């Protein structure tokens, strides 16, 4: 019998003295109590065991939790994207990733102080990003903005996350990533694309220039030789004149003059020399136009937007792209009167060129060697507070499957060497990101495609102090 089962028996002995003999009729009762004790003991042991087990599990689970939390923290804090929670109402960061603390060199406690935002990213140096924060509404946010913490080195930062309101306070949670290098590479890529486009055009432009150079120099050559021939004729006539004055051999001199005229083919020269010079003037004009357009197209990249005449810019771009489309398409232009617009002209030229070359390729794919010509329509118009440029072709149209991807970098359906898939990606980046405009297209397979560039006249690109004053 288990020791606890004799508990009542021992208690009775202690109470009544060791000499006490437990009456036989109590035995049943004592056995029942013992059995109840035994049952209780089993229960107790079980409970104890299970408590012990569950507390161990809890401990293990807790340590797993700690591990996983640590893992997530390490993950979040070992990347270059800095996780943060920003309480915009109190102007502080309740949480900032360790890498952020290291990157910015600001102690964790300083981030938590109400008003820290004004100290770390003071408004006067971080106008753009502070405004972006203020403009955030409930839901996801994503933007790229320059950042100048405490006005030292300037970086470009991509902010992505969610904005929510908790008990009246506005919170932004998410990641901030330094994209300065990425942006730099992007700019280099854009520059490379520009060079590529210019290089591709160079062959066509060379042809456009070389042909008039050829006929201008041939014409000048002709006029030069004609001058020598004319000189011989004049010489002969002078002799004739001399003969007349000095009553010499007028008949002989007249015959010689006649012969000189025939030898020089004077009639031909008199008829053709003016034509040759007209043609030369026209050819030189053509060359001058191309060279001027080249210069206008390759408008140096500016740091600031400048006022530009888009119609004039598009005309120049059409001149240098002439060789790309002249064999496959009729050009149909309609330029409405446009006010000057503030823009990065060199980049807009690039966009227009990319779209023109694409259109010419699409038409070329349709007409092939048939000698038929498609139609390339270029229009500009004023639409409310925006300028719309449309470039339409009667080409192949964009296949259904490609429509979603046309603006993706490196997406191309052209064969190797005809395109790197950067054109439209850069076009969109220029139009949308740099000018706050839109770039869209309408397409129908077999009918053609039209791209629409919309540029707001009051350019609401963030960071221009003027616009803020107006708002």
């Amino acid at each position, binding site marked *: 019998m288990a020791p606890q089962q004799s508990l009542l028996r021992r208690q009775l002995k202690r109470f009544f003295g060791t000499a006490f003999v437990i009456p036989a009729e109590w035995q049943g009762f004592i056995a029942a109590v013992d059995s109840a004790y035994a049952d209780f003991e089993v229960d107790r042991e079980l409970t104890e065991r299970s408590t012990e087990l569950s507390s161990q599990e809890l401990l293990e689970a807790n340590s797993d939790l700690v591990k996983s939390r640590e893992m997530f923290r390490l993950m979040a804090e070992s990347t270059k994207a800095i996780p943060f929670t920003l309480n915009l109402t109190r102007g502080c960061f309740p949480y900032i990733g360790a890498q952020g603390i290291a990157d910015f060199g600001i102690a964790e406690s300083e981030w938590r102080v109400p008003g820290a935002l004004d100290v770390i990213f003071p408004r006067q140096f971080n106008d753009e990003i502070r405004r972006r924060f203020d403009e955030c509404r409930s839901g996801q946010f994503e933007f790229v903005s320059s950042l100048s913490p405490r006005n030292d080195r300037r970086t470009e930062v991509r902010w992505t996350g969610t904005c929510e309101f908790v008990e009246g306070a506005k919170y932004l949670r998410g990641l901030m990533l330094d994209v300065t290098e990425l942006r730099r590479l992007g700019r280099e890529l854009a520059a490379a694309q520009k060079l590529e486009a210019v290089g591709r055009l160079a062959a066509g432009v*060379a042809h456009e220039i070389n*042909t008039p150079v*050829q*006929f201008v120099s*041939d014409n000048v050559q*002709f006029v030069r030789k004609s001058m020598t021939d004319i000189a011989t004729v004049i010489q002969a006539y002078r002799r004739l004149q001399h003969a007349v004055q000095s009553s010499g051999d007028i008949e002989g001199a007249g015959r010689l003059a006649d012969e000189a005229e025939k030898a020089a083919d004077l009639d031909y020269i008199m008829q053709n020399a003016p034509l040759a010079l007209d043609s030369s003037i026209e050819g030189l004009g053509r060359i001058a136009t191309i060279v001027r357009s080249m210069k206008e197209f390759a408008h140096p990249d500016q740091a600031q937007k400048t006022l530009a005449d888009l119609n004039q810019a598009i005309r120049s771009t059409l001149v240098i792209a002439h060789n790309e489309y002249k064999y496959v398409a009729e050009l149909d232009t309609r330029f409405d009167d446009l006010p000057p617009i503030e823009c990065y002209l060199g980049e807009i030229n690039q966009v227009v060129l990319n779209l023109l070359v694409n259109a010419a390729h699409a038409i070329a794919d349709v007409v092939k060697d048939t000698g038929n010509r498609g139609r390339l329509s270029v229009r500009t118009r004023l639409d409310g507070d925006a300028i719309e440029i449309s470039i339409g072709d009667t080409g192949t149209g964009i296949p259904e499957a490609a429509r979603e991807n046309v603006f993706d970098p490196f997406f191309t359906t052209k064969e190797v060497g005809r395109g790197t898939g950067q054109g439209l990606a850069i076009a969109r980046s220029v139009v949308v990101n740099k000018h706050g405009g839109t770039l869209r297209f309408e397409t129908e397979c077999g009918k053609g495609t039209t791209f629409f560039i919309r540029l707001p006249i009051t350019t609401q690109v963030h960071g221009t102090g003027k616009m803020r004053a107006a708002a």
Partner: protein
Amino acid sequence: MNERVLFVDDEPQLLEAIQRTLRKQVDLQTAGGGEEGLRVLREEGPFALVVSDMRMPVMNGAQFLGKVREQAPDTVRVILSGQADFQATIAAVNEGHIYRFLSKPCPFDQLLAAVHDGLNQHRLVTAGQMLCKRGFEVASKVSQSPYIGVARSITTLGDPPHFVSKCG
């Protein structure tokens, strides 16, 4: 002897200017494109030399000269191109079997020299053919001679007509 030259270019002003400068030195005809060039060749040929632009609508210079070669194999072919495009040059050489590749702008003296060289080349080609023809005639006469059986039996000379046909 045929010394006529056909210039093909889609730029009429260029054809006019060439006409003006070369009119005294060369018997010149012009055409504004590949199709017209082939028509002129067919209707007003033969020509000793064809000088063609490279980039033209419908039919480029290489394609045009390829067809010229089929239509008039003796006509010497030259390209005068405004585009120093490597691919186009290769195509012109391979498709058109061209004699010279000139690039615009080509100075007058060089152009004239190339035209003269082309005409010389044509003379060589036609002279070679004439020699072969004469050789053929002589050989035919020889083969008809009653002594040829004897001659054949004592030499390893092949059948004369086969031998000369290689010249054609």
